[in-house]
């Protein structure tokens, strides 16, 4: 594990190659093979059980709901800083803006409330869902833009600003509600789930990392000055205010920036593969409470 982390900060190509070898060995010894069962038929409930059991074994002291607090539940110093920060959270401005945008009527007089079940309040835990009519995974961010477009408004940028503000407000009204992602009895839904899972474990980029390399094998480890967040519950805190970004970011922003950090070319925000990834990653966090909007270093 140490070889993996030190290889990452090394700059010479030799160091990187060594790190990759180290990583492969680590994967075997950690028993991550238990989770990666790509060759077998997709079985989401079994995946969910294995995924959550893996994290429970890895962090026996943590309660299930602690995972939604990401790196803060892995590092005592960070935890104390975060508690202090939550007294005066940096996402407050975005939250207020989101509330304002959410209630503001469109030019045709309708509002976001007309597009969503239960007027858009307390529904974050049901997204993403598989829309059998559209035949694809619909994330909350996609649904927000679909709502804007169907009402003749300009869609938001997927990565920050207004999109982050509106989804922050919608997450805030859903705080504490457990993720409840359903996979309908539709082969297309299962295929989307499986595609997301494949993406999660597939290596990419010049550094040859998969999402799982950092967020399954190494949560709690340092990557330079940062503490890596566990994949379990990672989406529950979205959208987030990242001090590193100096602002709010959505799930789209997190996916694209993660992909560029491993030196691969990121897909377009809300690309089919990213939506499938969000579907998979949300499903395996079923039962964990929504804690967004969050703040991260």
């Amino acid at each position, binding site marked *: 594990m140490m070889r993996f982390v030190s290889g990452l900060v090394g700059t010479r190509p030799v160091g990187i190659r060594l790190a990759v070898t180290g990583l492969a060995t680590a994967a075997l010894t950690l028993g991550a093979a238990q989770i990666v069962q790509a060759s077998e038929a997709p079985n989401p409930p079994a995946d969910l059980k294995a995924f959550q059991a893996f994290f429970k074994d890895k962090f026996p002291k943590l309660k299930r709901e602690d995972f939604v607090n990401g790196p803060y539940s892995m590092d005592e110093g960070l935890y104390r800083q975060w508690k202090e920060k939550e*007294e*005066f959270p*940096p996402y*407050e*401005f975005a939250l*207020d803006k989101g509330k*304002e945008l959410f209630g503001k009527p469109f030019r045709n007089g309708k509002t976001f409330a007309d597009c969503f079940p239960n007027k858009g309040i307390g529904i974050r835990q049901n997204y993403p869902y598989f829309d059998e009519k559209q035949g694809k995974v619909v994330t909350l961010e996609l649904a927000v833009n679909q709502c804007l477009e169907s009402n003749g408004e300009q869609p938001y940028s997927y990565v920050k600003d207004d999109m982050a503000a509106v989804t922050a407000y919608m997450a805030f009204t859903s705080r504490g509600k457990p993720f409840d992602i359903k996979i309908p009895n539709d082969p297309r839904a299962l295929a989307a789930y499986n595609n997301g899972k494949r993406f999660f474990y597939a290596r990419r980029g010049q550094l040859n990392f998969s999402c799982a390399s950092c967020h399954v094998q190494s949560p709690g480890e340092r990557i330079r000055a940062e503490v890596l967040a566990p994949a379990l519950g990672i989406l529950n805190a979205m959208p987030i205010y990242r001090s590193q970004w*100096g602002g709010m970011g959505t799930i789209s922003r997190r996916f694209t920036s993660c992909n560029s950090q491993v030196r691969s070319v990121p897909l377009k925000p809300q690309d089919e593969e990213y939506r499938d990834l969000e579907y998979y990653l949300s499903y395996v966090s079923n039962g964990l409470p929504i804690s967004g909007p969050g703040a991260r270093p």
Partner: protein
Amino acid sequence: MASTIRVRARSSGDTTEVQALIQHPMDSGFVKNSKGQLIPPHFIQEVVFEHGGKKIFVADWGPAVSKDPYLKFAFKGGKKGDDLKISWTDNKGASDQLTAKIQ
């Protein structure tokens, strides 16, 4: 438009703890945008906290202070229900102010 200032002032014993968050770009003037042009300097120069007509905290800020700055301090003499006035002025002459009650 909502205020650019968020403040929380809590009195306990004889001290009052004040926390404030101000929404401001705080551009230093040394950063370039995606087209390679300099973003002109735009930062808060003075922040003033007043209590009972007296300035209790004055900060002279410059371009080195972060975006959306946060500050925290404590002072003696505040009571629950007292007014606390916060104001800032930036290098372009813009300003904002807010009066909050001490809790």
